[in-house]
């Protein structure tokens, strides 16, 4: 389905993981890059431990704030990453914090099992996978809360923005007191090399 050159990025995770903040940074970055941006999120349950999805779309002319398939999905949690594969178009890119697990109640109660075969599922769906130890990177940068920004850094390799766009986006959204630590997390993320290319 041609979507007029518009790029769609979806951020998925669990309430409280900074999904909305990450989406705001991405939207500002695209805006600084001179693109039209539209975004949408479902946030009613954001603080009650439910799944959270936020979508950012950018391009020369963007009509709709949502799209049926994402070019890139950024996941702040492993299970939500596996769930988020369904949002990706074929050959799209999944950037996932694979070392972060937030166990849902049904798994705690042993009614369901926490899945872990993200790589296999990504291969089956023919999408590109970037596995990131985002929590490790964030901690190395100085705060475990910067998982979202470390992932943006890793995703920046496949997104069409220059470093100064990203910097402007981060500065526009983040308060000064946490800016430095987040800039470090972003750079550590940016250095991550994709672990798996799409197999043809």
């Amino acid at each position, binding site marked *: 389905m041609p979507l007029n050159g518009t790029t769609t990025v979806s951020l998925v995770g*669990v*309430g409280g993981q900074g999904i909305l903040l990450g989406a705001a940074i991405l939207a500002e970055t695209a805006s600084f890059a001179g693109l039209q941006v539209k975004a949408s999120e479902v946030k*009613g*349950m954001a*603080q*009650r*431990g*439910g*799944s959270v999805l936020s979508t950012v779309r950018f391009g020369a002319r963007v009509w709709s704030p949502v799209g049926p398939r994402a070019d890139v999905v950024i996941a702040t949690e492993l*299970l*939500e990453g*596996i*769930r988020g594969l*369904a949002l990706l178009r074929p050959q799209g890119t999944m950037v996932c914090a694979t070392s972060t697990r937030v*166990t*849902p*109640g*049904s*798994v*705690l*109660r*042993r009614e*369901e*099992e*926490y*899945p872990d075969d993200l790589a296999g599922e990504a291969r089956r769906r023919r999408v590109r996978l970037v596995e990131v130890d985002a929590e490790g990177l964030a901690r190395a940068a100085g705060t475990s809360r910067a998982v979202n920004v470390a992932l943006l850094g890793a995703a920046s390799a496949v997104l069409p923005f220059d470093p100064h766009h990203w910097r402007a986006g981060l500065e526009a959204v983040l308060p000064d007191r946490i800016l430095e630590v987040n800039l470090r997390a972003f750079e550590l993320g940016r250095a991550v090399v994709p672990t798996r290319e799409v197999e043809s």
Partner: protein
Amino acid sequence: MERQLFFSGNEAIAHGAVRAGAGFACGYPGTPSSEIVETTARLKGIRSQWCVNEKVALETAVGASLAGVRSMVTMKHVGLNVAADPFMTLSLTGVNAGLVVVSADDPGMHSSQNEQDNRAFAKFAKVPMLEPADSQEAYDFMAEAFSLSEEFDTPVLLRTTTRVSHGRGQVLPRVPVDVPRREYARDISKYVMVPQFARLRNRLVLERLEKLRRRAEQSPLNVLEAGTSDFGIIASGVAYTYAREAFPKAWFLKLGMSHPLPCAKVVRLYEQVSRVAVVEELDPFFEEQVRALGLPVVGKAAIPWDGELDQEVVFRALEPYLLRKPPRRRRPVLPPAPRSTDPPKPAPGLPVRPPVLCPGCSHRSVFSALRRRRLAPMGDIGCYTLGALPPLLAMDSCLCMGASIGMMAGFNVALGEKAAVGVIGDSTFFHSGVTPLIDAVYNGVEGMVVILDNRTTAMTGHQGHPGSGLRPDREQGPSVDIQRLCEGIGVRCVTVDATDHAALDAAVAEEAGAPGLGVIVALAPCVLTSREKAGEVVVDEDRCNLCGLCLDLGCPSIAPGDDAVSILETCTGCGLCVEVCRRGALSLVEAGSCP
């Protein structure tokens, strides 16, 4: 000779409801509807109530219907605006025992501030509508209305106008309908309209609409009446009677079940005659639907939109049309059955992640206390609605903002005991919980209301409300004291610290056993706003036998292990699990003290 009764339409509705086995009638007075409840109040076998407003009246009738009693609620047209919130979602939940909403419209505004056409509400809510034309039909249609309501699991709108409600005519009484009482069965996915369940119900509503359309095609209430002229008229209600007298030789499609429109019957009328008119007061409700079939029709081009019609108005409007050449017509196109979206496909094998009550949430202790008393909690809208989901299963219903107390009242009135409890948050209480509490006092309801007072509008992002006094700019304004408000109404009310589980449990136990009506304010600030750790819960692994009592609290901070439960770091130390544990396996080490 058998004596015939001579009833107004409203009296006929009241007698028709009792004949149909209705055991509960309520409403708010409003011309031209008021005499219905005044009449049922004089009849045996039915409990009648004036409610504080139409919204509370409908919610009370819903409670009685859930309890298993056929129920009727009456109001004037503008009253349905007030009751629109429960009405729209009641279409999704459906009913237990039959429920009929009587809306008496007032074309011409004899006694009203507007003359809105409430037939639009039937279409809006996707529910069936009956329109009697005289007192006999008003009487007879009630049985059909209750039977449709139960067969199709839907509220039924019975719409009259001033001339039907206040017009009088002979009524031949009929044999009473034998209605077995329906047992109440808790059904959370039917009665708790959180998004995941409402989406499923919505699909059933669309399927129901199509089934109702097929029923309207077969219904004996929709009659194709043969005439001797080449002219057909589609009409319902009192407008039908005007048209019948103005054009005695015409063919008629007389609509008694007027929503959904029986389109095939409309087409059959067009097969008989070359000219067709719609005669209706107020909006072009049928006319637009007939035009949508691609059929030429005269209606509001000739007939006034506003005010009442009469025989002369109808005759003068349509006479010139009969002299004209019949319009050319194409083949009618019947409307397609409604389509719904593809059903949601959960990713196979992936655990779901529903939103849950937060660790340490004070609502959990209220639900835990209620659960022990076997009360049916009529719920409301807010974070606490999450308590309806497994494993807590702490809420039997969630219809709309403020519905809990009215539904509790109707449920308890119908069963004659304190079987249900109303559970409502502080912000929702201020939104629309005060009026049903006043209503419950006035109507002498036996019941209990628990107000979950976390001092904020938590679900939507901690906005202020009259109880907190916080304004959107975070300025502190005056605040309203819930306990004093309740006492002012005349309700027994206690405020309990919701973090004191034993005290809360004792208050619930006491109130459950007390006669009359009482309110418990379970007070504790939302844990998301305080975020203070009260202590650490320690597990004695030798004593824990994984019985599951603490796990049934649905706390996201408790996980079962191989030999014992474990407490996660998200635990706030609220201590509810310590309270419910019967083996002394859990203990609370309070913050600041050394373990």
